[in-house]
């Protein structure tokens, strides 16, 4: 085959082909986002449209504290609160632990120990979420059962603990990358001015790595609020009731969808999509808010 003869046109053709191939690949993601958004919103908003006879009131949906599809009671307020409390709890415990682990690996730990901790964290990230749930049910719930005033371990607390472990890898990896990206002259400068190692970490490195750490927190929140399988096993999923203590059971938005989608039909099914819409909106708000925060901080 004569490769030199048509080299130029051949090269051009290849260039064009790959250009469009890359464009096509890039569009797969964009189209998916739009398709998912459109699909979920189209189904999820259907019951609230005024022309829908078999619909449901949006206010009742968002303010109800009872989910009994058989009696036409579809209230998700207690689920929204459950989801938020579980996420806030997991972030409150998980972010400090994660951040300090990242600082430890990146700044303080001797190489030997860092080489043990880092693979462990990476492994933690790779464990399928259902296994977290099985672990949560077999260990955390079992232990909590002994101390719970409700005589059972499935609770907000169990959910928070499982979610905390689950968001650790995200927070640690993102924070570590951010900390490592801080130019070493910052460190040197701080140390040269007489600051101790810990002072340098808190006063110089963490502030400098802030945007990366925030990104880790955003992803952590996303994972916590979106987690389904693991949470389903440990949260208790009650059909009613706003959680008022750590020992109360919660039914996060995600598990509500996963539990019943297999059987639901008609309005019930549409309202499960509506639950998805609420979840979707939450994720968008959190992303936008924290993005804004990060950008403001950088400026």
């Amino acid at each position: 085959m004569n490769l030199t003869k048509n080299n130029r046109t051949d090269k051009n053709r290849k260039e064009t082909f790959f250009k469009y191939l890359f464009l096509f690949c890039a569009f797969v993601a964009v189209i998916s986002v739009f398709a998912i958004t459109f699909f979920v919103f189209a189904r999820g908003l259907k019951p609230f449209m005024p022309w829908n006879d078999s619909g449901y009131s949006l206010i009742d949906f968002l303010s109800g504290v009872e989910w009994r599809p058989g009696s036409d009671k579809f209230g998700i307020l207690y689920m929204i609160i459950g989801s938020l409390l579980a996420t806030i709890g997991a972030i409150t415990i998980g972010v400090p632990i994660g951040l300090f682990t990242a600082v430890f690996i990146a700044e303080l730990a001797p190489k030997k120990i860092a080489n043990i901790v880092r693979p462990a964290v990476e492994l933690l990230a790779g464990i399928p979420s259902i296994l977290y749930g099985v672990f949560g049910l077999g260990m955390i719930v079992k232990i909590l059962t002994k101390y719970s005033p409700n005589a059972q371990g499935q609770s907000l607390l169990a959910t928070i603990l499982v979610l905390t472990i689950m968001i650790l890898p995200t927070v640690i990896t993102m924070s570590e990358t951010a900390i490592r990206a801080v130019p070493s002259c910052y460190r040197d400068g701080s140390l040269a001015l007489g600051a101790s190692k810990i002072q340098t970490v808190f006063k110089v490195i963490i502030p400098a790595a802030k945007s990366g750490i925030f990104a880790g927190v955003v992803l952590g929140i996303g994972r916590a609020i979106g987690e389904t399988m693991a949470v389903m096993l440990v949260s208790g999923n009650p059909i009613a009731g706003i959680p008022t203590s750590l020992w109360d059971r919660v039914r996060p938005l995600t598990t509500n969808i996963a539990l019943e989608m297999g059987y639901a039909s008609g309005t019930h099914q549409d309202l499960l999509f509506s639950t998805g819409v609420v979840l979707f909106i939450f994720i968008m708000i959190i992303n936008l808010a924290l993005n804004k925060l990060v950008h403001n901080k950088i400026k």
Partner: protein
Amino acid sequence: MKKYTIFILIMLMAFTLATGCQGGSEDDSEGQVSGDVTNLTGEIVGGGSTSTKNIMEATGEEFTAINPDVIFEYNSTGSSDGVKGADEGTYAIGTASRQIKEEEKASNLTEKVFAFDGIAVIVHPDNDIQDITIEQIAKVYKGEIVNWSELGGEDAPIVVVSREDGSGTRGAFEEIIDFEEALTADATIGEGNGNVQSTVAGNANSIGYVSFTYIDSTVKALTVEGIEATTENVLNESYKVSRPFVMVYHEENLNDATKAYIEFLMSSEGQKIVESEGGIPVK
């Protein structure tokens, strides 16, 4: 040359990606046709209980696989509708997931029990309670009894475990025990029989209910009003937390295809499908 190979490979991959989503689920049931293909034709119209839907559709699917010219249709509209439909001729076969009521028994309406559904009430093996009555179960699940001492056990709160809404087992349980839509808000919801079983196995104060196949050494099945939860006791109708799956039809309304289908459903092959769909076979 090598470049061209890679080029072609990428094209192939893109092509499979692009076409992959179209093929899909069309022909996965083919090739599993068992037995001889017959030339039976006709339409089988069935309808009734939602609980028997899985069994009816699974057997119907298998039957139409053997008899490709037969059209099978099942409408899950409820037990009462099934009996009424069979009597009025809307359905050739109507099904009910309960005993046929006295007032429903029309003249020459044939009844045939083709499966049973049994649910075991389970507690932790360490629980001292051995027996429970239907009334007590109802009170526990409605949240009127909240402590084991009220049932003769230790002074400990009862942790009620139920199934997700829409589950056939939950529907059957609520219907048989008669507390439909009155489940206590305190109930923990487990997803699937296995989840309820492991939740009960992990908590000494809990009570749950599962299909018979989920009884094992990690949980203890209670006797209900003195009767043990076994398939024999379901078949002789002494175990209360069970119900028959009945089909009703007018003999003269049946076409050949429907007759053959009923025969198939009652055959050992049909009953095997009943069992795989979670029912208790009658033979």
